[in-house]
């Protein structure tokens, strides 16, 4: 775990779960694998707080536990899964994707499951129905069956999956015959055969509107009723979690389609979209390219609204194949031509475009020209760089040295004699895409950390003002509920002076900007992470 990743995980844990969980989490990340007692001793927190924090982390799938080094008889060891903590940055994007694919119901389902880590189907359906009912006008309520159908659609397309079953880790009962999974190999959720099977639940009814006029008694009664209802539903013990990998595949497809539409045109992007949709289910997660599709199949699957005739389709396909970005490749001639989408190559090209744009925005277009030259030509001497890039020698030298000091360009020595004498050695400049991508990914993590810290600093500086405005809003809301006169409302509103209002406005503007930047940096993080993972998978 790199320094920046640990820092980012700490900030995210603190933001969502508080200081206690942050302390426990960062300590566990730094130490690797620890038992409960060791963790409590080293963090100097009371044992109960450590237990609660570990419960929260396990619930959200960020911490795994298993039999430790001493085998099944020894204490249970815990380890943190850093990736799932960093995924917390991307929660808004997951929720927005669910909304665009499955509407408000899907959006709320994914939001509930993300916030609670794991949930049973029945409790999800109930909570979402209640939330939707609250937002609907009086008299209407949401039927459970609609929510159930949205849930089942999410499961069918693999966006939600069952939590993997656990072997009884740490239990004192004598199940010595079943081997416990070691802490190093958590069971993959996909290995469970019933991963995407919906349980049969007996759940009928409608969402309940939460009324503020009824007192706490009604809530208690409803809460007790809900508890007894839960056990009758028949899906105890079957918890569902969000399948992040499927969302990532979807984002990758979206990135490829938008790249094609930027580079070529809308119709080509529609063709690529059709190809990707057809091979969604048949392509395994880490495949380098999709299944081969014949041109006839593609034509049949194309929606008629796109209005692409058969000969045009063939032309578009050949254009896509000839494009230097190599998104689509031709693997055969049967069936009018067999085409595949080159997933890994597309990711590599997208990552390369990201690197080039970073260099261009930070150092100028001429440095970007040198960078692209080195990416293409691999190794070049100083003189050759000046000639190929058509930049005067002094400036080229300056730019090269700036890039070298930022570690974006590396120096390779090729000796002519075994003693590496400087007058008899070639010095070649080179760019390696993979290490540079890793470097930029760490820069991105650092950027997000800085953005979060700046936002916390801004909030802390203006804490007094924010609290005052919240109090005034609460007063205004209560006054409006009791239908006070307009004079009273204006009097309360004037309690915030005009310069304070301006300060609040600018504070809100800054915080929005910082938050928006975090979302945008996360898009780069996703691209670079996918590229790095794809190169590791192909090795």
């Amino acid at each position, binding site marked *: 775990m790199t320094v920046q990743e640990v820092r980012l995980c700490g900030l995210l844990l603190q*933001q*969502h*779960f*508080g*200081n*206690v*969980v942050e302390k426990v989490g960062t300590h566990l990340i730094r130490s690797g694998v620890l038992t*409960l007692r060791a963790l409590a001793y080293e963090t100097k*927190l*009371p044992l*109960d*707080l450590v*237990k*609660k*924090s570990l*419960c*929260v982390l*396990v*619930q*959200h799938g960020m911490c795994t*536990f298993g039999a430790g080094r001493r085998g099944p008889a020894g*204490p*249970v060891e815990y380890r943190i899964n850093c990736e799932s903590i960093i995924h917390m940055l991307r*929660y*808004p*994007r997951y929720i*927005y994707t669910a909304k665009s694919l499955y509407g408000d119901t899907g959006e709320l389902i994914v*939001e509930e499951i993300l*916030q*609670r*880590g*794991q949930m049973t189907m029945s409790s999800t359906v109930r909570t979402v129905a209640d939330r939707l009912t609250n937002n609907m006008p009086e008299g209407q309520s949401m039927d459970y069956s609609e929510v159930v159908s949205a849930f089942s659609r999410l499961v069918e397309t693999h966006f939600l999956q069952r939590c993997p079953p*656990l072997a009884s880790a*740490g*239990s*004192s009962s004598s199940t010595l015959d079943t081997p416990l999974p070691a802490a190093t190999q958590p069971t993959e959720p996909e290995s469970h055969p019933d991963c995407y099977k919906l349980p049969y639940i007996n759940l009928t009814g409608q969402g309940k509107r939460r009324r503020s006029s009824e007192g706490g008694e009604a809530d*208690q009664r409803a809460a007790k009723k809900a508890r007894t209802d839960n056990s009758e539903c028949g899906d105890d*013990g079957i*918890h569902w979690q969000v399948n992040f990998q499927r969302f990532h595949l979807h984002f990758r497809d979206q990135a490829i389609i938008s790249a094609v539409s930027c580079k070529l045109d809308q119709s080509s992007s529609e063709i690529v979209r059709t190809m990707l949709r057809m091979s969604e289910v048949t392509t395994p997660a880490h495949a380098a390219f999709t299944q081969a599709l014949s041109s006839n199949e593609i034509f049949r699957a194309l929606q008629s609204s796109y209005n692409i005739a058969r000969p045009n389709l063939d032309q578009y396909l050949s254009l896509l194949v000839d494009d230097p970005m190599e998104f689509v490749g031709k693997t055969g001639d049967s069936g009018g031509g067999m085409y595949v989408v080159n997933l890994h190559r597309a990711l590599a090209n997208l990552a390369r475009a990201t690197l080039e744009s970073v260099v261009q*925005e*930070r*150092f*100028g277009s001429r440095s970007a020209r040198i960078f692209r030259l080195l990416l293409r030509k691999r190794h070049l001497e*100083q*003189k050759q760089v000046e000639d190929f890039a058509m930049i005067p*020698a*002094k400036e080229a*030298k300056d730019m090269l040295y700036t890039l070298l000091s930022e570690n974006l360009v590396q120096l390779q020595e090729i000796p002519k004699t075994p003693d590496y*004498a*400087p*007058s008899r*050695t070639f*010095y070649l400049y080179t760019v390696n895409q993979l290490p540079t991508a890793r470097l930029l990914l760490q820069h991105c993590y650092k950027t997000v950390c800085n953005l979060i810290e700046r936002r916390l600093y801004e909030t802390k500086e203006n804490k007094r003002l924010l609290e005052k405005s919240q109090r005034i809003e609460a007063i205004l809301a209560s006054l409006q509920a009791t239908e006070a006169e307009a004079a009273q409302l204006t009097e309360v509103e004037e309690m915030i002076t005009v310069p304070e209002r301006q300060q609040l406005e600018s504070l809100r503007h800054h915080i*929005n*900007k910082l*938050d*928006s*930047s975090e*979302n*945008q940096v996360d898009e780069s993080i996703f691209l670079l992470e996918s590229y790095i993972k794809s190169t590791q998978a192909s090795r």
Partner: protein
Amino acid sequence: MAGNRGRGRSQFTFNVDALGFGRGDSLPSSAQTPSPLFPPMQFRPVPLHTGEEVDYMLALKQELRASSKNLPFHIKAARTKTDVARYSDKYQNGEPKNNCIEWSPDWSRMPKELCIKVRKTRKTAIGARPQLTPKVAAKKEEVLQKLETLEKREEEQHSEEEEDEEKKKKNDEEEEPDADEDYDEEELEDETDYIMSYFDNGEDFGADSDDNMDEAVY
């Protein structure tokens, strides 16, 4: 390897032109301080994306952040009480306690050692108790029985609170061994609540007044 050292003026051992600067140029000065915290940028950054999608995701992000503070997963450490135990403590349930968890996870999916008792609301706990005591008695002894059950209920409540207090005290003791050390020395002398150095027991009263006759004695 002994090579041609050059006669007179210094010569570099490698071909200087390959590096790009001539003989007469001075070498750039080496950096002696760490690079500045906010280095000046050559180019202004590109403006952020805008649009409906971006605004919606921004709103989602801020909402998620605000609502996660209200969920039971946001763990706050219980405030350690440093002054006297107050009567109102019994009635203030809002404070989080360290030894109970505010949500009920599925314990079958967690290791057994993490099990803490789940926090229930006070009302149901107290309401359940009188039902446990068996309700027997003829009419004549009904009043006596009722008095006895009320007594028992008070005792049980008291013992339950004592248990809680003890657990809390144990936790407090684990957390604050340092605070106690300051008081230890003073208290050890006479085992009273009063700090001995502040107490003047009047033994020196007569002895001092003999020496200082010029000071008025009131």
